[in-house]
């Protein structure tokens, strides 16, 4: 499994999750977990996704999600899970 963490931060509007999920489905990226919270009035969503069957490499997905974020007016980041594991797990 190639786990990545996708985060969406911005002002809450209708359809953010739908747009992101549609993109992921189109590219065969499987969502394992979704959670969300509000920090300082900003909508924060985190998805844990499995990219092992993804049709595109992570660098391309990162660029695509960047652009999608710009369209919706939020910031979307896609990062490999290891950076969080290394920082927060012994």
């Amino acid at each position, binding site marked *: 499994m190639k786990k990545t963490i996708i985060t969406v931060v911005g002002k809450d509007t209708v359809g953010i999750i739908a747009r992101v999920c549609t993109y992921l489905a189109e590219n065969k990226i499987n969502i394992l977990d979704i959670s969300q919270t509000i920090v300082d009035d900003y909508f*924060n969503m985190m998805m844990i996704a499995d990219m092992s069957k993804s049709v595109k490499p992570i660098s391309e997905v990162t660029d695509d999600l960047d652009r999608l974020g710009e369209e919706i007016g939020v910031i979307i980041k896609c990062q490999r899970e290891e950076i969080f594991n290394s920082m927060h797990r012994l």
Partner: protein
Amino acid sequence: MINISEVIETNKMIEKENLDVRTITLGISLLDCIDSDLGRLNEKIYNKITTAAKDLVATGSAIEKEFGIPIVNKRISVTPIAIVGGAACRTPDDFVAIAKTLDKARKDVGVNFLGGYSALVSKGMTRADELLLRSIPRALAETELVCSSVNLGSTKTGINMDAVRIMGDIIKETAELTKENDSIGCSKLVVFCNAPDDNPFMAGAFHGVTEADLIINVGVSGPGVVKTALENVRGENFEVLCETIKKTAFKVTRVGQLVAQEASKRLGIPFGIVDLSLAPTPAIGDSVADILCEIGLEHAGAPGTTAALALLNDQVKKGGVMASSYVGGLSGAFIPVSEDQGMIDAVNAGALTLEKLEAMTCVCSVGLDMIAIPGDTKATTISGIIADELAIGMVNQKTTAVRVIPVVGKTVGDSAEFGGLLGHAPIMPVNGFSCDAFVNRGGRIPAPIHSFKN
């Protein structure tokens, strides 16, 4: 599984608190390039660097993108050129030719600094060492981003005062040759006591002769992250303070370790060390001085500064060594002046003097760093400053260094502008009393005794 608050914490460190991997430095041994013919030597050096480092920048950028962590610099360190060029170089000009080859190779692979235009003369100088020293001013003036370092002393050998005296002149000459740009040549020149073989940070990086053919060393950073973590424990006691720094240093170092391993795997080059340094930049919030203020000082330089810095440095190491199996390089808090807005503010406020900085270097990495001094400072005075700083390293069995910039045509009250990561600096006053007779004695200061510690 990772939870959302952990993800938010990491991304906040990166986006708001300037967490980054400061440098991936590829160490390249040039020992197998040695040749008695200068032309062939230059050709071999160029080929080795451009082959070994051809994927360095692209790999760094790919890792940066996939993990979402900025890797600010991709750099190269090479075997000290005095050793590599010894058989081929007959004049300082011959060494300058090698410097130009290094700069060309660096440019062609796209890295932003190359270190190792160096000589190791802690006990004595070979003819080649002296030729290289004499060539430094021109080498730095005529190349763009080649860095030079000279190891002038060590705990085991004492201090080579002949070389210290020469370096006073060399620093002045380097300043003169680059006077059009606030003597910026001196920002690429550092002298050491106990120089480490695996330092990834410039200007002092070189690839020691004890190292493998190729090696990846990584320098992490994160003063802003430590500062922010400490904001949450204001007024708490030292135990809480230290625990907070340690935990933060652990997290920062783990990111460096991850990047180092990933780069090593992708490039097929062994991983050397992670350098656990708190390296500031001129960016607001990326300051070691600000951490000292957060610990409880009005300005860096106030009474208590040395103790606060000692505590900070020690906790960074304690957290860091748990996070990485191979720690090396300089590993400690850097206290450059021009590269740290908080330090600049402290100097401007009159809180921080050269003498206090010298005291601070006793307890942290690495020395008198990026300090602009009046352009009319005498060469012997610079040698005296160097000797003082090296003595601290020699006696305390630590690395110390001096990177001072006598800015030609400027004096106290003026400011020097170096640009980019090198920042800007107010010219600091230097004690004007003479040390000529001391510096001109010639010879060596013997190695210190290793017993009867007081």
